[in-house]
């Protein structure tokens, strides 16, 4: 269990001060947990604090009974941590098996035979056994991500933190990756940070939405979806003018009879042809962000 209380993180001082986290409160249990939010919301900062890389300015973080605000606590958490950062750097001249083996050594896996067995196991889990002895520099983006998750798993972590893991992956890789994460969440806490709403909807039963360093929603994907009930419409128009009046266009589709807009907002009473539709998770997210006063750029 992860307990986060009034967590604040500031970067810089004076006029250059940026508040990345602003009194964030959150409790995360075992299983798959999604962290959703726009770019710059503070997700990566939160991930890095949980990984013991970044220090909080104030507030407390407790990971499985370990206080992460102390140096000793950070070291303890790192022993039970698997971490896949957003920007994954590797040694291109190493093979996949060498890279994961090296990370295993850094994580304290001493026994060479046991370590080798564990390295083989995790490479097999991510489907890289056939390419284990190829140099990383020849890997595709998806394969590199898989090496990244293999190194994160090599110490059999109780807490797995993955930051934007599906960014840049093709649809097939994304599906494979999501399924892998769900499998891993059976017996550990997996914290998935992303701005891709679909990834959360497909994998998490529990999620939080962060905006401007604060939690603005905590619940299930279904609850987030239902928050937009009565606030989503389809409108088909053959004029060039896009709908406005405080409505956010979530998607556009060019049809034979005109352009179909999917819109989220308080009211569509200005458009008599607008048809109310069932909301999806993305609609719920857009509605939430609108209510939080977060500007959403549309086409």
């Amino acid at each position, binding site marked *: 269990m992860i307990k986060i209380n009034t967590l604040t993180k500031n970067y810089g001082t004076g006029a250059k001060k940026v508040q990345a986290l602003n009194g964030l409160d959150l409790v995360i249990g075992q299983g798959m947990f999604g962290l959703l939010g726009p770019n710059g919301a503070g997700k990566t900062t939160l991930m890095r604090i949980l990984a013991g*890389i970044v220090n909080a300015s104030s507030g407390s973080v407790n990971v499985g009974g370990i206080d992460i605000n102390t140096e000793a606590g950070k070291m303890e958490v790192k022993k039970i941590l698997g971490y896949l950062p957003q920007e994954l*750097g590797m040694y291109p001249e*190493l093979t996949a098996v060498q890279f994961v083996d090296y990370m295993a050594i850094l*994580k*304290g896996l001493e026994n060479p035979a046991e370590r080798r067995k564990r390295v083989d196991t995790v490479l097999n889990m991510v489907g890289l056994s056939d390419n284990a002895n190829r140099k990383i520099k020849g890997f595709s983006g998806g394969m590199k991500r898989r090496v990244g998750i293999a190194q994160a798993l090599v110490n059999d972590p109780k807490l797995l933190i993955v930051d934007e893991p599906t960014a840049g992956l093709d649809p097939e890789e994304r599906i494979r990756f999501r399924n892998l994460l769900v499998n891993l969440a059976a017996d550990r806490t997996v914290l998935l940070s992303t701005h891709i709403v679909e990834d959360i909807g497909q994998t998490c039963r529990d999620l939080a939405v962060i905006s401007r360093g604060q939690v603005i929603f905590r619940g299930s994907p279904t609850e987030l979806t239902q928050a937009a009930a009565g606030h989503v419409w389809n409108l088909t128009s053959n004029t060039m003018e896009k709908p406005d009046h405080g409505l956010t266009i979530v998607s556009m589709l060019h049809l034979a009879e005109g352009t179909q807009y999917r819109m989220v907002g308080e009211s569509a009473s200005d458009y008599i042809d607008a048809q109310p539709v069932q909301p999806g998770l993305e609609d719920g997210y857009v509605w939430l962000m609108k209510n939080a006063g977060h500007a959403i750029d549309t086409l």
Partner: protein
Amino acid sequence: MKRFSIKYAFKTYKLDQLWLPLAIFLLFVLISLFQMDTPQLMNIARSYLAAVVPLLAGILAAYSILEDPALELRFATPIPAIRTLIERLGLIFIIQSAFALFFQAVIKIIGGDFSMYQSVWRLQLAWIIPTLSLMMLGCSCSLLAANSTIGALMVGMVWLVELIARGWFAQNFGKYFLVFMGPLMPDHPDLFANHVTLFAISSTLFLVSMALLEQQERYI
């Protein structure tokens, strides 16, 4: 717990950090061979040991920590800062030492004479002390500025100023901080004090680097 591997320390070592010292080593060997029967031979030998080895080591040390492509992953492991420093700086020192020792052997074989240093131990101290000093300067400055290039520039600046003004340094209070005293002025009466001071500064800078590296968020 074992969190260090010589094998991977070498495998994750950037090849350009090996080719550059090797190329310069070969260049100086070549120049020495051309000058083997002239009085210039020992000047070339001293230049390599006194100036080139420390400068290269200092610049490589400046780039050794922050240019690690897997720095964020490394930070997420329970490996203490001192291990990272020893792994990265140790390797640079070992490689530079190997070149320095090979070079001494080459000079001896072609007729060079290091007797001005009075003993093998003093000869080794003559390049080890400046090498360690500039390595620690480069490493600590790059960590302090969170920028490898600034660390390398500081090394270059100190090296250049002390090399040009070594006469002035040797005759004033700066004699304790002159990194070239060992190799270029082996008879200086304050050589021992100079070595002790530079070693103390190097040790302090190592501790400073360790403290700086523990502030991981400054580097990601």
